[in-house]
C-alpha cells in the first residue's frame, strides 16, 4: 500500500523542509491527499517513486513560498522520534545520533530560507540552477544562501563541539 511504502519518506522530507514535527504531519497528509487525487495523471512509463517525490517536493516548495514556516513553529529532533538501526553497534549508534542531533539542531537554527535552500541542495541533490528555477530566485542569491547556510551550520556545530564532529 502506498502509505506503508512512502509515508516515512514523505514525512521526513516534510520534516526537513518545515523543521516542525506538527507542520510535517499536516504537510504529509496534504501530500498524500494530493497524491491520491493525482494518481490518474501518473504516466506508467515513468518511475513512480521519482514521480511521487517530485510531486511532494514541488508541493513543499509551493507551501514554503506561501507560508515560509516561521522559526517559532519548529521543534527539536530528539531520541524518541529518531528511528534506531539495530544493525549498528550501540556505541556507534549513540555517536551517530549525537552527530545527527547536532546537525539537526544547526539546521533548525537556520532561517527557513537558508534551510530550504540547503535541503534542496544537500538532501535533494538539486543543482544551483534547478533551485533558482524552483524558488524563482537569481542564481547568485541561491549560491549565497547555500554558502551562508553551510557557514551558519558549521559555526553552530563548531561552538557545540569545538570542531570535533
Amino acid at each position, binding site marked *: 500500500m502506498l502509505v506503508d511504502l512512502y509515508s516515512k519518506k514523505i514525512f521526513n522530507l516534510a520534516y526537513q523542509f518545515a523543521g516542525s514535527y506538527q507542520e510535517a504531519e499536516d504537510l504529509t497528509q496534504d501530500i498524500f491527499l494530493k497524491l491520491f487525487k493525482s494518481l490518474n495523471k501518473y504516466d506508467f512509463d515513468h518511475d513512480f517513486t521519482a514521480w511521487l517525490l517530485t510531486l511532494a517536493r514541488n508541493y513543499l516548495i509551493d507551501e514554503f513560498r506561501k507560508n515560509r514556516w516561521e522559526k517559532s513553529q519548529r521543534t527539536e529532533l530528539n531520541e524518541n522520534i529518531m528511528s534506531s538501526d539495530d544493525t549498528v553497534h550501540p556505541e556507534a549508534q549513540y555517536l551517530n545520533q549525537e552527530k*545527527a542531533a547536532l546537525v539537526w539542531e544547526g539546521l533548525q537554527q537556520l532561517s527557513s530560507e537558508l534551510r530550504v535552500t540547503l535541503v534542496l541542495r544537500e538532501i535533494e541533490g538539486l543543482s544551483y540552477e534547478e533551485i533558482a528555477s524552483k524558488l524563482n530566485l537569481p542564481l547568485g542569491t541561491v549560491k549565497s544562501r547555500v554558502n551562508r547556510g553551510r557557514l551558519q551550520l558549521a559555526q553552530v556545530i563548531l561552538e557545540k563541539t569545538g570542531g570535533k564532529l
Partner: protein
Amino acid sequence: MNCHQARQLFSAYLEGELNPKEEDRLKAHLANCPHCQAVLDIMAGLSSSIKNLPEIEPPATLLQQLYSIPELALTPEKTALEKGSSGWKFWLSPAFQPILIGLTVIMVAFSFLFFTSPGKTWQKEISFEIHRGYSQAQKILVKAGVLTDKVKGYQEDFLAALEAKNLYKSK
C-alpha cells in the same frame, strides 16, 4: 583577504569552482587563520552529515489518518455544474410546483398591494396601465409610419438622381 571575504568563497572552494588565483589567496588566508580552517573543515563534512540524517518514524496517529485518505480522495465529488443542476432540478421538481404556483399568486397579490398608488383601486390601476401601454404602442406605430415615409422619400430622390444622370430608367 579577511575572514569575511574568505568565508564567502568556502562553498565555491569545496565544489572546485574557484579560479587558481582565488584559491591561492584563500589558502594563504587559511594557513594563517585556524578559526576559518576549523569552520571549513566542518563545512567539508556537512554534505554527508546532512545526507545521512537518520529517518524519523512518522507517528502512529498520522499513519491512521493517512490510511483513511484514499476513501476521502476517491469519494466522487460533485462538480460545480452538477451541484448547480441538481439545485435547479429540486426547484423544478413536480412536488415543488404547487408551492411555486402559490408563491407566484402571493407575489402578484403583493405587487398589487405595494405598487398601487394610494387612492386608486386595483381595477383603475389595471385600466390605467392598459391605456398607457396602448397609447405607447400607438406612438410607436406613428413613428414607424413616419420613418417608412421618410425612407420611401429618400428612395425616390435617389432614383430620380440616377435617372437624371441616365444611369437608371424607371418602368
